[in-house]
């Protein structure tokens, strides 16, 4: 097993492939510039870049990226950046110094790498900068000087982010040379063979949730089957009547995929985790972990999506997404089965829709309540309608009673209020660390009211739709 770090090939033989990339960098590679702040992908202090030939480098949280999953890849750490004045003097680094962007300095390498990722792709403007650093926490500066650095980093003599020798020589080594106990198959057939051979294998994709078992509970899974390189699972296919999205497609690819199709989804994705999380986390993982507060399932419910499930024996079946979740963190996946893909019918996708996410903090926070609603209107008459929520029950759930109220009704204020009242009959949410049950109930109705009024009247009732104050 080997990988390229800052342009140099490192033989990682002897390092456990199921340890995190962060641990490998800080111990075996002796590169301590990359920090551990949380070991859960929430703070960004461990941010590094993964570079592939011909692609813009992607920022990832090295604290929840397994070493085996980046075997053969090229990694750039803060130590790998250089500018015209030498190592550690990259334009991003110079801008951070000149803008007083560091105080205690502990989060700084993470910010530098997130900004370097932006710099490598040529991203500019405050929104792009904020988006790039939304997954990086700083407790000292208040961020203003870091945003300033993001604006000014282009004012210096340009320098590459990925060292000249940074791209792996051959095509990335996807598993052939991995040590026993860690498998990274490249074909679905190989994946299925592995699942037959190792029925108890620990299946992992981007690992943005699963790897927390290792970093928080100190689990030592064996063997690990990493599906991020399975070609069929990484494909997005437009089948005309439906979009077929492979289970291992990361959120960042979904952002591109839905750019023209669903602005509401793209806006929501920008608040799903962070850039680092979206570069690793996958659609399939968001379904398969069975979480009631996952952000994609309500959207898939609103679009009548179907989940393609495959088994170790090669058998495939399809279930509507609404029957995929059985109970709290429990799905219909049987032993040896995995999510292969999700199909979204074009017809459903073309219905007008709204996706609203509420969270305590705007960026990089788990939803308190998420509403996804799609609705066909002919005149003021409601046709097909789907209303789905996250955070309101033990599973992501369609509000069928509400749909019943709306279907074939005239979308007047009375109908809207009846629909909002019907929300209360559908859900008995819980109090937890994110919100009270009462607030969740009120919000389920409030978001529904907003969505229905917006679709009916063609308006934006959001907090960001108001005019600036004219003094």
């Amino acid at each position: 097993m080997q990988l390229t770090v800052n342009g140099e090939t490192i033989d990682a033989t002897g390092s456990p492939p199921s340890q995190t990339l962060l641990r490998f960098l800080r111990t075996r590679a002796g590169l301590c510039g990359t920090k551990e702040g949380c070991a859960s992908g929430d703070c960004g202090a461990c941010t590094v870049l993964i570079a592939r030939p011909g692609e813009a480098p992607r920022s990832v949280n090295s604290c929840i990226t397994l070493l085996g999953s980046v075997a053969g890849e090229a990694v750039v750490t803060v130590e790998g950046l250089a500018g015209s004045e030498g190592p550690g003097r990259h334009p991003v680094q110079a801008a951070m110094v000149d803008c007083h962007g560091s105080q205690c300095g502990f989060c700084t390498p993470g910010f530098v790498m997130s900004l370097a990722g932006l710099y490598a792709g040529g991203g500019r403007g405050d929104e792009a900068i904020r988006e790039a650093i939304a997954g990086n926490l700083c407790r000292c500066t208040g961020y203003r000087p870091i945003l300033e650095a993001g604006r000014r980093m282009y004012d210096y003599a340009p320098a590459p982010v990925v060292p000249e020798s940074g791209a792996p020589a051959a095509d990335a080594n996807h598993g052939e040379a991995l040590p026993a106990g860690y498998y990274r198959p490249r074909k679905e057939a190989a994946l299925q063979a592995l699942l037959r051979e190792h029925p108890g294998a620990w299946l992992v994709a981007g690992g943005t949730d699963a790897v927390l078992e290792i970093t928080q509970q100190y689990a030592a899974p064996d063997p690990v089957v990493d599906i991020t390189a399975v070609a069929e699972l990484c494909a997005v296919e437009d089948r005309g009547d439906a979009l077929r999205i492979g289970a291992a497609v990361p959120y960042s690819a979904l952002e591109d995929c839905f750019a023209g199709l669903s602005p509401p989804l793209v806006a929501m994705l920008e608040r799903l985790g962070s850039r680092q999380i979206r570069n690793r986390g996958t659609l399939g993982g968001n379904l398969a972990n069975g979480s009631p507060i996952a952000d994609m399932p309500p959207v898939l419910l609103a679009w009548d999506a179907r989940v393609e499930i495959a088994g170790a024996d090669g058998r495939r079946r399809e279930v509507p997404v609404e029957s995929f979740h059985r109970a709290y963190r429990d799905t219909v996946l049987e032993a040896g089965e995995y999510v292969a893909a999700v199909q979204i019918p074009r017809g459903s996708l073309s219905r007008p829709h709204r996706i609203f996410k509420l969270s305590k903090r705007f960026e990089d926070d788990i939803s308190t309540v998420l509403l996804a609603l799609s609705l066909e209107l002919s005149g003021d008459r409601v046709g097909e309608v789907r209303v789905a929520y996250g955070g309101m029950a033990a599973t992501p759930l369609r509000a069928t009673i509400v749909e019943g109220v709306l279907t074939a009704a005239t979308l007047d204020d009375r109908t809207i209020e009846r629909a909002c009242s019907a929300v209360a009959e559908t859900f008995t949410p819980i109090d937890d660390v994110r919100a009270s049950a009462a607030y969740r109930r009120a919000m389920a109705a409030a978001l529904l009211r907003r969505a229905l009024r917006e679709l009916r009247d063609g308006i934006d009732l959001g907090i960001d739709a108001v005019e600036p104050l004219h003094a």
Partner: protein
Amino acid sequence: MRKLAPQAPQEPVGKGSADPVGKGLPQDSAWRHVAGTAVYVDDMPTYPNQLHVATGRATVARGRLTRLDLSRVRVAPGVVDVISAADIPGNGDIAPVFAGDPLLADGEVLYLGQPVFAVAATSFEAAQQAVALADIDCEPLEAIVDLSTAVEREYYVLPPHEFCLREPEAALLAAPLTLDGELRMAGQEHFYLEGQVATAEPTEEGGVHVYSSSQHPSEVQKLVAGVLGLPIHAVQAEVRRMGGGFGGKESQAAMPACLAALFAVRTRRPVRHRLPRRDDMVQTGKRHPFWNRYRAGFDDRGRLKGVSMVLAGDCGCSADLSQGIVDRAMFHADNAYNFQAARIRGLYCRTDKVSNTAFRGFGGPQGLITAEAMLDDIARRVGRDPLDVRLDNLYAEGDVTPYGQPIEESVLPDLMRQLADSCAYRARREAVARFNASQDEVRRGLALTPVKFGISFTAKHLNQAGALVHIYTDGSIHLNHGGTEMGQGLHTKVAQVVARALGVRYERVLVSATRTDKVPNTSPTAASSGADMNGMAALDACNRIKRGLVAFAAEHFGCDAGEVEFADDRVHAGGESLPFEDFIKQAYLARVSLSANGFYRTPAIDFDREAAWGRPFYYFAGGAACSQVRVSALTGEYRLERVDILHDVGDSLNPAIDLGQIEGGFVQGLGWLTTEELAWDDRGRLLSDSPANYKIPTAFDLPAELEVRLFDRANHAETIYRSKAVGEPPLMLAVSTWCALRDACASFCDYRFNPRLDPPATPERVYWAIEEARAGRPA
């Protein structure tokens, strides 16, 4: 958008511009931060025989340990040593002031998650995996985990305390109007990005060298010696830097340092204890929650006649630093306002949870926000703009605080008026009123609030500092002082002081790690006092060296001592002028001492806690902020549209660093008052134990428009080059945002009253506040 731009890339300080004081120099470690070469404790190389520590936790909030079977732990892979309280050779209590903070639970369990035993193993993971194998039984006892119950049952860690000014009860009776109010505010997790960590290496003398991420290396040294039963000189503590502190590494750094040291001495191996984030959040203290109640008497213009307040601090399971913290809440319950007559009562409540501790502001913010809430409530009652009520009640020179300190310098009336003008407060107040009258879904709020913060440790003996300055024969200068670097730029500021004092280029001065064997018996780097005290001590050290150098120069060059001048990186004596390094070489050859230690103790402070009267503070620092927000009635979501800050730092030692403290402090305060919500269950278990469910601000949360300016006026007190302390006060500028949110909520009842909005004002709480306002009467 901002007027005070960050300084351009720094030109080397050469002849003619040699004085670095007042320049926005980057932090001395800035290039190392961005390059990843700045070394934190966990970045230090490990030895082949390195051990790592993990702790096992108590499973009840209060109780007795009835069973502690560690046999499976001892035989777990990689485990080298296991200890519990009985294995501590010295004093197992690591409390900083009063007794009551056992390193490991000794029979009695004080909170859920308390370390009960510790393991040293060959890897971090092995240690963590081993602790899970323990068999621990705790017999639960009745636990009090909420502050109201503690207040009701008088469950205290220390007896109540009181300030009294004039005759408050009579004043309240005589006042034309009175109002009662209360505010419950949550604590705050420090969330320093670098968690608590220490490494200990045994020394040949049988002692230990501890590398700690600590704001208080002398305390680490003392407690490690105590735990080991060794004299203090057998232990050295060293702090190169912290990855953030904010008060959380004042007393709380002791636990990992003491455990690492214990294992180091027992095993004769280097030992590291780094707390994983979850352990750090569960096992170390936070900002104190408070439940504060007030009664105010005032006239029909809102002018105060008398105030009575009860401030109940939630200290957690032990006193720790809580006396000073609740005291400081009491010292700031007046904020900037003349209460005329006052009774301020402080309660030091115990709850069976992790002991709460220092956090930037040290209780001050919890007192101050109560005054601001009260002034807002009074303004609603008398129907005036809250800013006018505030201005009418500000202290003037000659007034006296509820604890007897006379107001010698009153900058806030000027400062607030300047800010109100520059940020167009009046015009925007009218525009906000027009906007709010125009529609119902989204409303705006505006508030301008001051901060007055007392500078000095209220424990008088801590107001002392030391420094050590060496000049080497090539003219390079090495500086150590008692303060620690946690990101606040202290080393840079003190180096600037030394460079000015010796008239040399800033680049000549190198600051290295803070060590207890360089400068002994230091105070914590806390109370915003770092630059004030260590700057003065370093200046004293420079002056001591200079005395010898001046005498030498006068003799050598045959001039009067008064004709010797250190400036522009040169030494001028009589008609001669030579480069600093040449002069130093000559002084060395002439056997003149080139090294000195310096000392400083803050003058003028004199406070009698028993009498609750006197002068606890050398001076006051502060500023004011104006926040403009908008809120959604639909969801309670809000946006911070604009913040204008005018902050008094006296003559700034380094405006770039001061700006960083102001902005960073503001956003940290913003987090406390908006999205940072600590949640506990009724058994005393911390639910918000990770950054996944405890949300500090991100870049999105800072104001869309932010303008920060420094108030340009020298400190009236004789501080280091007339600068003012800046560490803590800016945190409280964020109170303006909380007041603005409440102002926006109050618009839904036409400002007849302020709905309840206990901090943190999460979207949910804002939603309920709006609902209360819409219902038209206080809930």
